[in-house]
């Protein structure tokens, strides 16, 4: 049974090296049964319905109300919350900043992770230790990670500026220079997410049968060619998965780090330059307790996400090589 594993993989490699040829449509649906698929899905759907969809609906309902979490009031205002957001120059700037941030974090994050995972997969001395060092940032909670970065980049007493000052006579103002602060948050987010991406890339790389890379080497490919033309295409389902989850985590999970590292600042133009959509939402909803306004922001974010999911549907199954 396992022999058959190797066979189709070879064809995958051949096909993968000719990316212009589209993958054959998949015909996986083989088992019959009406009730069984529903039964298999039931636990997941039940949990998601109770703990995600129902609370989400309740949250979204609030987007047409003026509501304050503490006061507990609900005054119907129709689309006023949305109108206010969409016409707000602050919100527009925040949206633009978020776009740049997500693009940078996802691109840099995936490239670094791919390279490091590739290196980590090599049977080099101390590989285990090396892998551990790569995964640990993910294991740190955002609060601790943020605190560490804050100490490291304190402009007067942080070790980073101590080293830079000693070597080059530089004392950059990391947290109130808008460009540096933005870069720092991007870097911190990339660093924090590295572990996640590396774990999955490592798993995917280890899934690539050794004979494929060996075959490429025998054919005279350099390691780089072997990687780029043989291995990378085989990793494309994983890349696609990671692209998707990274966009989501850059959009939604970065606010803990931002809160501790910069508090959304420094101010540039009309808003703090590291204030991103989710941080703004968190501030409005849970610091300023403007539940209605926050719900409207959540609704807009959901719209954005619907667009991303539709894209995943449209391009996901087509552009990705799934093998034979």
């Amino acid at each position, binding site marked *: 049974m396992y022999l058959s594993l190797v066979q189709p993989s070879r064809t995958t490699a051949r096909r993968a090296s000719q990316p212009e040829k589209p993958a054959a449509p998949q015909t996986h649906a083989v088992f019959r049964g009406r009730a069984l698929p529903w039964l298999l899905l039931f636990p997941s759907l039940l949990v998601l319905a109770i703990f995600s969809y129902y609370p989400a609906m309740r949250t979204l309902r609030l987007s047409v109300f003026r509501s304050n979490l503490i006061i507990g009031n609900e005054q119907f205002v129709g689309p006023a919350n949305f109108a206010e957001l969409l016409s707000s120059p602050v919100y527009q700037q925040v949206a633009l900043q978020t776009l740049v941030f997500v693009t940078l974090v996802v691109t840099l994050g995936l490239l670094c992770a791919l390279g490091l995972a590739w290196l980590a997969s090599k049977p080099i001395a101390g590989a285990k230790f090396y892998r551990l060092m790569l995964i640990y940032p993910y294991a740190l909670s955002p609060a601790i990670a943020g605190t560490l970065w804050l100490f490291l980049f304190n*402009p007067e007493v942080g070790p980073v500026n101590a080293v830079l000052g000693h070597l080059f006579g530089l004392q950059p103002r990391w947290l109130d220079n808008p460009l540096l602060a933005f870069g720092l948050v991007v870097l911190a987010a990339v660093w924090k997410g590295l572990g996640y991406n590396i774990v999955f890339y490592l798993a995917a790389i280890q899934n690539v049968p050794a004979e494929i890379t060996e075959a490429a080497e025998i054919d005279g490919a350099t390691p780089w060619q072997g990687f780029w033309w043989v291995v990378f295409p085989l990793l494309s389902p994983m890349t696609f998965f990671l692209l998707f989850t990274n966009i989501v985590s850059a959009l939604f999970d970065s606010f803990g780090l931002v809160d501790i590292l910069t508090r959304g600042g420094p101010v540039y133009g009309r808003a703090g330059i590291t204030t991103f959509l989710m941080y703004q939402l968190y501030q409005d909803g849970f610091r300023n307790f403007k539940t209605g306004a926050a719900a409207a922001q959540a609704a807009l974010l959901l719209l954005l996400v619907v667009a991303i999911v539709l894209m995943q549907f449209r391009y996901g199954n087509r552009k990705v090589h799934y093998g034979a």
Partner: protein
Amino acid sequence: MNKLTTLPLLALASLSLVSLPLVLLSVASQAAAQSTTAQTTTVDFWHTFGDAKRSGWIQARADEYNKAHPNVKVVPSFKGDSNTTFQSTILGARQGQPPALVQVDGTSTQLALDSGVFQPVGSIKPVDFSDYLKPVIQYYTVGGKVNSIPFNASSPVLYFNKDLMTKAGLNPQNPPSTFAAILNVCAKLSAAKIDVKCVALTPFSWLFEQWLSEQNVALLNNGNGRASRATATNIDSAAGRKVFQFYKDLNDKGYLTNTGKLADTVGTNAIFTAQKALMTINSTAGLGNILDGAKQSGFTLGVGVLPIADGSTRNGVQIGGASLWVTKGVSKGVSEAALDFALFMTNTKNMADWHKVTGYYPVRQSSVNLLRNQGWFASSPLQVVAFNQLLSTSPNVANAGSLSGATIETRTIIEQGLQKVLSGQSVVSVAAATQDQANAAITDYNKNFK
């Protein structure tokens, strides 16, 4: 091997399918069982102190109280920072499960009143508030009613490095007490060519508010939001612009440093204790850590009164900190026990002890007297400055502290304004824009009541 892996997996799968309703049932029965066994009065007390020193102190007082009152069980628990503690209280109260006693930050006073979740302590039973320090009790008095029991209180002071002062040819016995004096000291420091910054100062709205209070200007209209709901701020006033100008002057002359993050007092404390700055302005609540830091890096710490804007007489500081609120949705017995414990925890002896352990003010006059009789002030002279600053404050509208449900938002707006000035924008335009933004935030909050 395959069978072996399949079996447990299938078992797990089916288990998870049936476990949900089971869990539901078991939890429901658990909840039912709990409600029938309430013999002793349980007082849940949520506070914001996670550190061993202060949460340990609170737990010790609860243990003492529980021992003396066998039918009452006070259960203190740390509930995160003040924002999370407050939010959890409100959420719990809406579900009919509030804690009895909650530590609420002073900035949330108006929100606490507007939430309708709490009851004024005076309505549970008559309480004698005459022993409380005036500046402290007036902060928690709204519309003639004391709503909560004062607990942890602090105010801002000037911290300075005595050794560096001496090195720069300045008199460490005479720290600067006005903005002009600070600039003067800074000029002398830079003339002495000592490679440290003069002041570590973060954009911090709490200080901005203190400096308005010292100039006898209320931050908010309508009696600082105490006579009736505030509708506008006095940020763009002569007093407010003086504060912006102070930040600007320090910055333009290269005297100022901070981490760049808003309200990052941890960062400025670190800069100061690492001897990278001559002075810093911060809360008395940080005295313990700053003192340790000074010892660690080997310099003598000095404490001075909060330096104020020139051209005004010292009107006094407003109190910072938190108080203890009793919730409404608990039985009469529980609320009485909660109040009784709050009064026990803040009694004369306990508050004097609290001050020694934490550096917070003892909020009672009798505690101050007790400490004085014990000779405490002679043995710890650094505390005296802060004390006198508070005791010499005679209460009025400006130093009573501002009340508004939008305080958290307006604080961020003020801090962003201070940062804009530091990045080179003009004081006049920033003060006007900051005032507009803050007023808009207050107007927006008030719309909740139309």
